[in-house]
Each structure stands twice: as C-alpha cells, then as structure tokens.
C-alpha cells in the first residue's frame, strides 16, 4: 500500500513535469525548416508522392535500417533465447473450429496480397514496408491460429529474411559508389512522379524492407508460438510452399 502511495505521489510530480511541458509548448503555425524542405523538394529529389515514405526510406534511411536491425535483433535473440525444448508429457492440442479454418483458407491469400500491395505502393500511398510486413505477419498468425501444429518453416523465413536484409545493405553500399552516398535511392533513375516504377530505388528498398519486416515479425511470432508446441513439431516439407 505504501508503495502505491509513493507511486501516486511520484506520478503527481511527474504530471507536474508534464504540465510544465504543456504550458511552455507552443503549437507551431508553419512547417519548420526541415519539414518545409521536404515538402518543397521531397517530390523532385526522391520522386515519391508519400513524403513519409520518402523520409523513411531515403532521407532517414539509416534510421530505418536501424529499425530493421532491431527487429532482426529481437528475432535473433528470441531464436536462441526461446529455444525449443522438449516438453515432457504429450498434451492434446485443441482442434480449431471449422469456421476459423475455412475463414483462414479464404482470407490468408488475400491478406498476403494486401500486404504485398501495401509495401509495393508505399512510395505513393499510405503504407509501406512496415505496414505491409505487419499485414503479412498477421496473415501468418491466422494460419497459426487455425492450425497450431503447422510449423512455419523457420528455415525458409530465415533465408528470406537474411537475403532481403543482405540485399538491402548491399544496395545501400552500392549507393556510395553509384550515387551520392550510403542508401542513396538515386541509383536508379527517378522515373515518372506518381507511378509505380518511380522514385528510383525507393520502391525496391521498401519491398526489401517489407519482406524483411514481414519475415522478422513472422519469425518473432513463430518463436512465441513454438514455445507452446508440445514437442519439436513436425514440419513436413511439402507444406513449406503454402505458407509464403
């Protein structure tokens, strides 16, 4: 109880801090220097309609790379952290409902398609690699929900993940030699503004990001999913193809 009182007092004080922030914060009327520059030059320099994507992939590409790295890190850590252990005693796995199975059979392809769309069009409309990746991963979840024993091939996921990450970095380094610097998207010509094949390397990078994020998130989920699998889980090779 004392602990709660102290916590309460502390949070009151913290609220005071925040209040001071609110008091002193002035809502901006105009875009600041940086944002104005992006608004002004983003379209022509990068060639992407979605400024957020332009920023995420090029201007602040290093951040994005870092973020992808973090997901990769998390997935890697989980892979040796939540190592699959043999659990003693077999437990029956509840069979999922008919409805769910049917729904997933219908929905999953669409979900994957949607994800792909989102990250391919990331430079034009809202959405992009993260969102698309996340959508793909949620499709995967649906699969997992319907059939807990169906093991998503972690090896394949890992390969796709590694390959996309490796290519991403490779393209980034190529930018040093072929364009203005690391992760410069102007390795390819800018193309026509507003079309699918525009914005230089940006869509490609975003696709790679999408793939990577998707596989990483999936990897993450499988790790958590795997820990509750009673034993090693058999993953027949023939099922591999269906999942991705």
């Amino acid at each position, binding site marked *: 109880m004392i602990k709660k009182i102290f916590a309460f007092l*502390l949070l009151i004080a913290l609220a005071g801090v925040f209040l001071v922030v609110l008091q002193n914060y002035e809502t901006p009327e105009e875009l600041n220097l940086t944002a104005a520059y992006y608004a002004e030059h983003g379209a022509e320099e990068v060639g992407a309609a979605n400024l957020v994507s332009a920023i995420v992939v090029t201007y*602040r590409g290093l951040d994005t790379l870092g973020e992808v790295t973090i997901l990769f890190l*998390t997935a890697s850590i989980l892979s040796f952290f939540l190592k699959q252990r043999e659990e003693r005693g077999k437990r029956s796995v509840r069979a999922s409902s008919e409805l769910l199975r049917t729904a997933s059979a219908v929905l999953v392809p669409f979900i994957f398609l949607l994800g792909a769309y989102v990250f391919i069009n990331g430079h034009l409309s809202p959405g992009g690699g993260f969102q698309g990746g996340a959508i793909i991963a949620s499709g995967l979840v649906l699969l997992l929900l319907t059939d807990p024993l169906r093991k998503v091939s972690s090896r394949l996921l*890992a390969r796709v993940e590694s390959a996309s990450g490796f290519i991403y970095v490779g393209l980034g380094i190529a930018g040093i030699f072929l364009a*203005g610097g690391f992760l410069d998207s102007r390795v390819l010509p800018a193309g026509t503004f507003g079309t699918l094949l525009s914005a230089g390397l940006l869509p490609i990078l975003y696709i790679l990001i999408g793939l990577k994020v998707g596989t990483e998130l999936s990897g993450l989920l499988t790790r958590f999913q795997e820990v509750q699998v009673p034993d090693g889980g058999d993953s027949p090779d023939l099922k591999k193809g269906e999942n991705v």
Partner: protein
Amino acid sequence: MVDQLFFNPIYIIGIGLAAAFFLGFFHRGTLAPRIIMVAVTAAFTIISLAWMQAFLLQGQTAEHGQAAAQVFTAGFQPPFSINLRMGAEEAFLTLLINISGLLGGIYLLDTLKKMGSHAVSVFIILIMGMNGIIMTRDIFNLFVFMEIVSIAVAGLIVLQKETNSLAAGFKYMIAAGIISVFLLLGIILAYAVGGSLNIDFLTAADLPGAKAGMIALFFLVIALLLELKPFPANGWALDVYDAAPAGVSAILAAAGSAAAYYALVKILPLGSSSHYTLVAAAGAVTFLGSNLLGLKQHRGRRLLGYSSVGQVGLLLIILGFSEVLGAQRDYIAAGIILSHSLAKAILFWLAGMLKQDGLEAWAALRKKPILLILFGSAVFALVGFPPFPSFFAKWELILLLNGGRFYLWSAVILGASFLEAVYLFRWFGYALKMDNEKLAEPEAPLFRLLPPIVFGILLYGAGWYMGSILEGFANFSYIPLAFILFLALIDRLPAWIKNTVSIAGVTFYIIDLYPRLEGDLLRLIFAGIFLIGAVLTLLSGYYYKGRRAGFYPLALTMFAGLAVLIEAANLLEFFYGWELMTIGSYFLLIRGKKSMPHGYSYMLFSVGGSFAMLFGFSLAAAGAGSIAMSALTGVTVLPMLAYSLMLVGFLTKTASVGLHIWLPGAHGEAVADIHFMASAILLKAGVFGLITVLLGMGAEASYTGPILFVLGWIGALSALLGNISASFQESAKRLLAWSSIGQLGYIVFGLATMSHLGWLIAISYSVTHFLYKGILFLVIGGIALKLGTPYMYKMGGLIKRMPFSFLAVLIAIITLSGVPPLVGFAAKWITYNLIISEGIYYQGFIVLISGIVAFLYLFRMIYTMFLGQLKDNLRTVREINIWFLIPVYLLLAAIMVLSFFPNMLLRPVGEMLSGYFPDGAIAWTGTLGTTRLGYYDGGAIMYVIGGIFVAALLFFFSLRKRTQQVKQFNIFYSGEAPSRPELSHFSYNFFAHYQKAIGVLTLPLVTNFWNWLSGILHGTADFFRRIYTGNGQTYAYHLVLYIVVVFFLQRGGM
C-alpha cells in the same frame, strides 16, 4: 589522408549489418559465423585505426572541426539527411570500442559457439551499434542506435542462463524502456523547437533560448545521463554487470560506457551552462556514492559494477567542467576512459575465468602469475597510479579544477577516488595473500587469455603515450623504467644474476647522476641515502638462494621512484616519482607472510597522502601558473591549505603520529633487506618531500606560524609515542619499526623549527638514522631470518653465537641513543642548542625525554637478543649471513668515521643551510664546533673517552687475575642451578611496570580513530546500499524519481 574508398566509416555499419544478416544463412554449430565475427570486428578496428593514425599524424587530437570527416547518407546534405562524423574523438572511441569488440568476441568464442550464429550476429550488431552511437550526428538516429545497443545487450545477458541473469535482463529492459521514453520526448520536443534533428543545426538553433527548448534539453540530457547509470538510479545497471556473462560485462564496461559518454558529449553543446553543471553534479554524486557503496561489496563482479559506475561518474564530472578544462578536457577524458575501459575489461575477463565470485576467491589468480600481474595493473590503473593514463588525467584534472578555484569538486573527486582505492586494494590484497589451496585454478585457455594480455599491454602503452604528449612530462627519461622492464623480463633467472645486474644498473645510475647533482648538497645527500642505500640493500640480497620472483623489478621500481624524486624538474615529475616509489614499496612490504592487512593500510595511507599532496601541488601550481618546482615557493592560492596538505602527504610517509598506524605492521612483517629499504631508506623520501615543501614555504608568512607549530608538535609527539611504544614490543622488528616512527619524529621536529640548527639536526639525523638503522635492520632482520622468529623472548645469549652481529648492534644503539662518544651525540647536543636558542621549550622537552626513553627499548633489544640465557635450540646457530654483515660493516665504518670527524658531515651541511638560514650556524675549528651557547669537540671526546676506557682496561689487566670462564647456568640462583634457559631469561614483557605506569600513553587512540572512521564509512555504505532492493519496480521508481527530482531542482535553480 585517409582513403575514403577503403576506410569509409559507413562501412562499419554496412559491413556489420551485412555480415549480421548474412549469418542468417548459417546454422548453429559451424565455425564460419565466428570466423566472420572476428573478421568483421577486425575490419572495424582497421577502419578506426586508419582514421586514428591519420589524426595522430596530423597532430590534431584535441582539435575539433577541420580534420573531421563528414559522411552523408542518402546523398543529401544535413540537416535533411542523417550524417555521420569521423573526427579525432570518434576515431579514438570507435577504435576503443572495436578493439574491445574484437577481443571481447574472441573471449566469448566458446559461449557464442554454444549459442549459435544468431548470437554471433547479435554480438556484431552490438559493436556496430556502439560505433553508430559514436558517429551519428542525428539525435533520432542516436536513439535508434541506443535502442539497438540496449536490445543487443539484453540479448547477450541471457547467454548465461540463470535466474539472476534473466532477472537482471528484465530489469535492464524496463530501465532502458523508461529511459527511451524520456529520450523520445526530448527528441521530439527538440525537433519541435529547433526544427531539426541534426545536432550541429540544433546547436545553432539556440534551444536554451526557448522555454520549451529548455525542457527538451532537460529530457535529452537526463535520458542520456540515465544511460550512464547515475547513482542512485542505477540498481539495474549493477545487476547487469553482476549477472551478465563476464565477457559481455567486459564489453559493456569498456565500450558501452565510452559510447554512452560520447552521446552525452554530443548533446551537451546544445544546452546551456546549467546543463553542464547538472552533469557535473550528477557525476560527483555518482562517483562518490557508488564508490562509497562499493566498500561493503564482497562479490567481485558486482564490485566491478560499482567501480564502473563510479568511473563513469568521474567522466561526467569531467564533461560537466568542459569549459574550465578547455582544450585539455579531451585529454583528461581520454586518460580516464582508457584506464577505465582497458582495466575494467581486464577485470571482467579475469572474473570470467574464476569459478567463484567472492573477493577472497580471487586468490586463485595466484595460480597463474600472469593473471595476477594483469589484475594488479588494472587495479593500479583504476586508482590512478603511474605509468597508467589515469595518472596523467587525474593530475591534469585536479590541476585545472583547482586552477579554476573549484576546490570542493576536486576534493570530492579525490575523496571518491580514495574510497575506490580502499576497496580495490583490499581486494588486491586478498588476491595476493589469501589462502588459495582450495580454490580451483582459473580457467584460462588461450582465447581467453589473449584479450586481457593485449589490453594489459595497451594499458601500459597508453600510459606511456599519454605521458609523452603531456606538457611538463615530455622530457621524462624512461631509461630506468626500461631497465626495470628488462629485469622483469629476465625474472626467470636465479636471484644472484639479477642481483648483480641490479647493482650494476644502480651503480651506473649513480655515476651518471653524480655530475648532475654536484654542488647541490641537499639533493646529493638524499641521493646518497637513496641510491647508496639501494646498493647496500642489493648487496645483502646475495643471501637469497633461488629465483626471488618479482622482487627485483619491484625493488628497482621503488628506487627508480626515489631517483625521480631527486631528479624531478617539476611537480608532475616529482609526483610521478612519488607514486612510482609507492607502488614499488607496496609490493615489497606485502611480500611478508602475514603482511596483507599491513600492506593494505600502507597503501591506503599512501594513496590518501598522495591525494592530499596532489591537491596541495595543484593549488601551488594554480597560484604560480606553472608546475615548475619553484611553484612551491610562496604559494598564493589558499597557501595555508596548500602547504598543510602537502605536508600531510609527506607525513604519511614519515609515519608521523596520527598517520603512523600502517608502519609497525608493514615494517614489522617485512623480510630483512626489505625492512632495511622500507625503513632506513623509504622513510627518507618523506623527509625529502618535507624539506622540499618547507623550503618553499619559508617561515615569514603569517600562515606559517600555526602550520609549523602543529608540525613541531606532530614531530615531538611522534618521537615520544614512537619510542614509548617501541619499549613495549615483543617483536624485534616491530620494535625497530616503532623506533623509526620516533626517530622520524625528531626529524620532523627539527624541520618544523625552520632554523639552522633544526635543519642541521634533521639532515644529520637523516644520514645517521640511515646508518644505524641500516645496521639494526640488517642484523636483526638477518637474525630473524635465521631463527625464523622476530620475537625477542625466543632469542637470548646470541652474543656467544654471533659476536659480529652483537658488536654491530652495540655500536648502532650507542649511536642511536646519542650516548657520547659516537656521532649520535652530536644530534643531541645540537638539539639542546636548538631548543634554547630558538626558545621552543615544550616541544623540545618532549623530544629530549623521548631520547631518554629510546634507551629503554634499545637496551631491552640488545639484552634480550644477545645476552641473558642462550636457548637450547639456538646452541648451534651460526653468525648471520655474510652478505648481511658486509653492508653492516660498511655502515659501521661510516659511523666510526663520522664519530671522529663529525665536522665532515655537519660542516658542509651547515654551510649549505646557511644559504637558507644564516643565523645560528655552528663555527668549526677542526673537530670543535662552537655555538653561541656551547661547544662540542667530537674528536677530542673520542680520544678522551677512548683513553679512559683503555686506561681502565689496562688497569684491570694489571691486576693479573686468573679469570675462569664458567658455564651458562653457573649463577647465584637461590643455591640452585637453573636447568632450562627459558626459566632464567627475563625477557617477556620486560617493562611491565613501565607499561603499568605510563601505558596509558600508548593506548591505540589513533588506531581507534581510524577504525571508527572506517566503521562509519562502512555503516553508511551498508545503510545506503539498501536502496538497491533487487526489485525491478523499485529501480524503475528510482529512475522516474531521479528525473522528477532533477527537473524540479533545476527549475528551482533557474
């Protein structure tokens, strides 16, 4: 110029990530991932090295700007894209990180093998992320890299799969999460106000100018500060250091701290001076707090955690004082970072080799001497001893802080450093001396041994480099140190070879030194004591059969330090010599069997003393504007404090009362020749220091009165208490040790009078004490060695077995007690003259009666050892080793010469002193000295007394008696012949009645005082460390509380 094509800093990120992603293709168990890891970290290192080398060659280490390379990403200019910078600082820090990564990776090879390729990629990303933190110039990018590092760390913690590691990792994640919340708030607010995320543009945007900007800065600074684990909001960090695999902790301490530090370095210029103050204050609290709490810690790794946190606190202080430190800030910070990182990594790596974690268990290191050497090097580097970088850094830091009148801050720094020394040396003492029979040998395969060894070498190299670029130290001669290194390298040879080499070396040095000192009698005398003493000690070293591992390098280190004292051209060199001497003497004193606690207290007093001295020197330098030795003359900044501190520093070495408690034990447990070095020679270093300071201080200024008054009383009381305590000792060695305290008391008293005669006493005592104490130490030490006990009541009747020793001791004690006709009397005579002519009656009286008391213990010693009943077990014992007798008789010859011709010593010294104190000089006619008050003719006294003695003897012979030598037990003893010598050897508790009468004077008040102080400190530490409840939520609470408190404190301050 660095080739950007090959050594582009972005490659560190590119290669790192590419490699990490590529590792996904591998499966665990293969060798390839680890090869890739080593190759990648090696590539990182090469890139950093290329830049570092370029900056060093351009000589722009401390310069910002021009030479630094900017790396743009995405092909756009900042602030619109993220850019990286590779300047001198970045090159230095990334180099440090990458080497740590390379070696740390090698150290972790087997752990990583078990965990598979994923763990390897996490490791690579960790190192890459730290590089990123250093290089990026974008605050949000900084955040991203910090998160990368946090998560990677959280992942690596669990390489060790224990509940504690898991709990530590969880707490760490929670803390990192909370910190990142505030960091993000700071970033976004800074962006809202400054309109940019680029550090350089934000600096120009004047954030402190806006209210919201100030708040943004607060969040940024506090978040980065919390990354640096400020006390007390750092429980989580301690757990990580404690529970993570040692290899990971090593990297965290070595590289992680450096990276987090540099993040703050980058952010702070955005803010105003109040942020610097905040950082400095947080640093001071941390440095002091965590070192205080470290006192109670009894597990190695956690203690290292405390120490790491403390060192980072020191870095924060340095950072906070950027303005004051100016161009030297980076030098100082580099020194601290180097010492801390290299030493901490070594220590953690060592911890990983041990099975148990208690401090006592570190004694297992002794089973592999190389590990012990590494441990020692690391400990000395952390405390700030030469030749390590932290020594120079600490010197500069204190100098500049005190130059800027920030006395309290430097006092806090030194105080906290002292606390650190307290636990580090306790620990080191355990490692050196604790019983290690039952401990398992440290597990040190080559891949684990290599990293600490490389770091050890780097530590020394860095120290050398830091010294060579420091103004005032650039011309320092390293030849003696090279000689010591040579001795260390030939340590496997038998002792007599090394002994000969050492004697040759010292002799050569004397010959080389002499022309440089000619004409400077004062330094010549002390050089004589130090170096001739060295030769004599080494001469006696021939007695030793076997290898005597480690003795020669350390002994020579001490003598080198003493020689540096003599030769020092400025305060820095002087201090360097002083510390060098301390190191050497510490290791010599702790060689004895039971000397662990005594070596420890010696070290503590030495460290405390040298810190006091450092403080005093820095005040002197602050006033004079230079560190030349002349700065000691007429100090203008807080002169009273400055001189007092310097004197206290030297008084610790002269073991004057109040600061003496280390001496009896330390000297009492030392081996014969070491005892000689420590007492007859080493203590004189303190005297030399006192002389140096007092010459600078003079006696004119008003503040000198109280100082000299106190000093005089310290001297007088040391003399009295030293002598009285000596009378009650049962161990001959301890008796001599106490006697040294007393004798040094005379010297201090003489110096404190600041008069011609007083100084004459001091200097002639320095010489004669060297002579007769040399004899006593060597003989008694030799006997103790031979008999295997220093206890006098176990001896007796040795005159029959060791007549040469007896004669030497007899002469020595006659000299010591000042009984005419030997030269010791000269000092007594001058003392009377001094007391009366200077009117210092009360102190003088104390000194005089202590001279009388000296008689008690001297008689007791010679009687109980040489006279009385010969014990049965000693009937066949032989004369002490000839190698002891040779130096003894050389010293004896010197005493006899000086007794006949006291003017040989007193006259030139007097003439020299007339240069400083013209009044009251002794007039000399041949051997007759005359003062205003009296006269003394050493030669005549020798002849008269000799004549009377011979005449009496002749008269006795002329009686022509038949003399019959009788058996030992043939005495008048109630008509019985005692059968056992023990029964009739009256020796134990010889002065029981004296003790009964005045034993109250020898109550260990001083010891009790220091024990009390230590108890208070430990109690405080124990009380405060209970804030570390081990509960993750409490730590989260601490973090938020820290933020809130600092926020309101700072607003209140604004």
